């Protein structure tokens, strides 16, 4: 007889993010199947699973880049109401620009590679309506510094930067407007181990200092372990197990999770 987990009783705050029964098919492939999740303010949710498990698709839906076949998604923010999947293109763009930050594994997806790094960060502020050059410059610099980007390279285009630095520019862009929700899609995959540690450390520090709510997707359990409070394990589009991060890693219940955890070096 397994013990059923109850609804929160001590934490009075409402969840910031609520996704319910989100499903998405591509042709015959069910990419995401009935995924539900809640993330509370300041919490870090990790999503793990192998390639093709649907974790990145789910994240892209949270970034409103992709529309699911069914399901609902709400954010507890004063300016939005109801299912965010029903928003029109314009409202989506404004919401994403102002409230949701994202860091992609591939910096080409998130950055203009030939524009200056500070310009990449400033773009987000421009979309949100900032029209003062001095303010753009100042805020872009602040965000880049918070992401531990070297100040003397402020105006270097990302194409001239190393992978780790490119991720910092993406991160600065994501946090420039102090988003309510930060989405991270394999933010350190493909980086050298030492650079990976530095980026993770920056993320951890930002999370602690700014209490940003994060959803981080990775197939790297080490990354999830370092950052996440809670973990959701996905396989073939479905959530097979969810729980506190240390519980998932120390006492995985599902056969697939056990296999995943034991496979870690």
């Amino acid at each position, binding site marked *: 007889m397994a013990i059923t987990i109850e609804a929160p009783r001590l934490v009075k705050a409402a969840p910031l993010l609520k996704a319910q029964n989100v499903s998405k098919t591509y042709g015959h492939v069910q990419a995401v199947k009935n995924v539900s999740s809640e993330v509370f303010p300041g919490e870090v949710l990790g999503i793990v699973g192998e390639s093709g498990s649907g974790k990145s698709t789910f994240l892209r839906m949270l970034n409103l880049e992709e529309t699911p076949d069914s399901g609902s998604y709400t954010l507890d923010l004063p300016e939005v109401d109801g299912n965010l999947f029903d928003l029109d293109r314009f409202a989506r*763009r404004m919401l994403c620009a102002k409230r949701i930050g994202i860091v992609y594994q591939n910096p080409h997806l998130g950055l203009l590679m030939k524009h200056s790094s500070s310009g990449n960060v400033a773009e987000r502020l421009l979309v949100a309506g900032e029209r003062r*050059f001095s303010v753009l410059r100042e805020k872009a610099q602040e965000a880049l510094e918070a992401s531990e980007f070297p100040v003397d390279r402020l105006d270097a285009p990302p194409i001239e930067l190393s992978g780790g630095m490119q991720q910092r520019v993406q991160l600065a862009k994501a946090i420039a407007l102090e988003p309510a929700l930060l989405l991270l899609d394999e933010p350190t995959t493909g980086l050298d181990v030492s650079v990976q540690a530095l980026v993770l450390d920056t993320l951890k520090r930002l999370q602690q200092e700014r209490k940003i709510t994060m959803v981080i997707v990775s197939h790297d359990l080490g990354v999830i372990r370092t950052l996440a409070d809670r973990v959701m394990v996905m396989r073939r589009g479905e959530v097979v197990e969810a729980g506190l991060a240390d519980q998932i890693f120390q006492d995985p219940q599902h056969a697939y999770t056990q296999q995943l955890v034991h496979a870690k070096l």
Partner: protein
Amino acid sequence: MSLSTLTKDWEPMSYGFLDPSAKREIRRKMLKAVAVPGCQMPYASREVPMARGWGTGGLQVSLTLINPETTVKVIDQGADDSVNAASIRRFLARVSGAPTTLDTLDADLIQSRHRIPEEKLREDQVLVLQVPNPEPLRPVQPNMSIARQMHADADYGRMWLQLYEQIVRSGRVMQGASYPSMVNGRHVMTPSPIPRWDVPKLHMAKHLTILSAGREKRIHAVPPFTRVEPLVFDDVPYKVEEHGDLTCVRSGAKGFFMNEIPQGDGSSTYEISDSEFGVKSIKQTEGTDTIFGETWYKNGEMS
């Protein structure tokens, strides 16, 4: 009664060269363009006896608007006497019987490439500008379908990003001609490659401006008394070319947009770009009675 009495005799060419259906389409598209200031309206763009890219867009609009009473002026980079301007002027007169003029004040219809005359235009005048690239978003969004969505959403952040990049790299906004401008607070348009000097002339102007791109098949318009605001940062003011203090070596006119004439010794002299204004200035100096219209710039300052 027979069919021949009801119909006109066969003619080798329609009045004003374009056939009536082509004109009707352009009239409709012009009305649409006026109704939504700054918004690009697609049109068919017929063949005219001129190569695409030489002002076919402007020519089609002129041919549609023209009638035997329309006085026509054609300018190319400010000059009435360049080959291109002279050819278009002659063609317009030939196919419509319309009178032509060089004087801005006398013109009803002004077709222009890359300049707006220095004398203020009136409510009864129409300015037709030839446009090579009507899409201001092209440098930031090569995909035209996405660019149209961006117009629909008024998603112009990237335009400012372009200005940001220029200031960061060069210390100032480098955009010379075709300075992107917000029309009626809604659509960003390219005002055709007129210099920065001319953009303020469109703002709340009394005349109607129609901008037509023949190769790209787009018409947009600035109706009379419509706001045209160059995109700028709130704290980096818009600057026109520093021609306010320059004097024309031939006419002595001062405080207008000039063409730079490089000299053998490395220095430069300047000639007024609006050639007919220069001619008027010379006539005045010679003692001929000349009527000047009110100018947009006075003493080198926009008034």
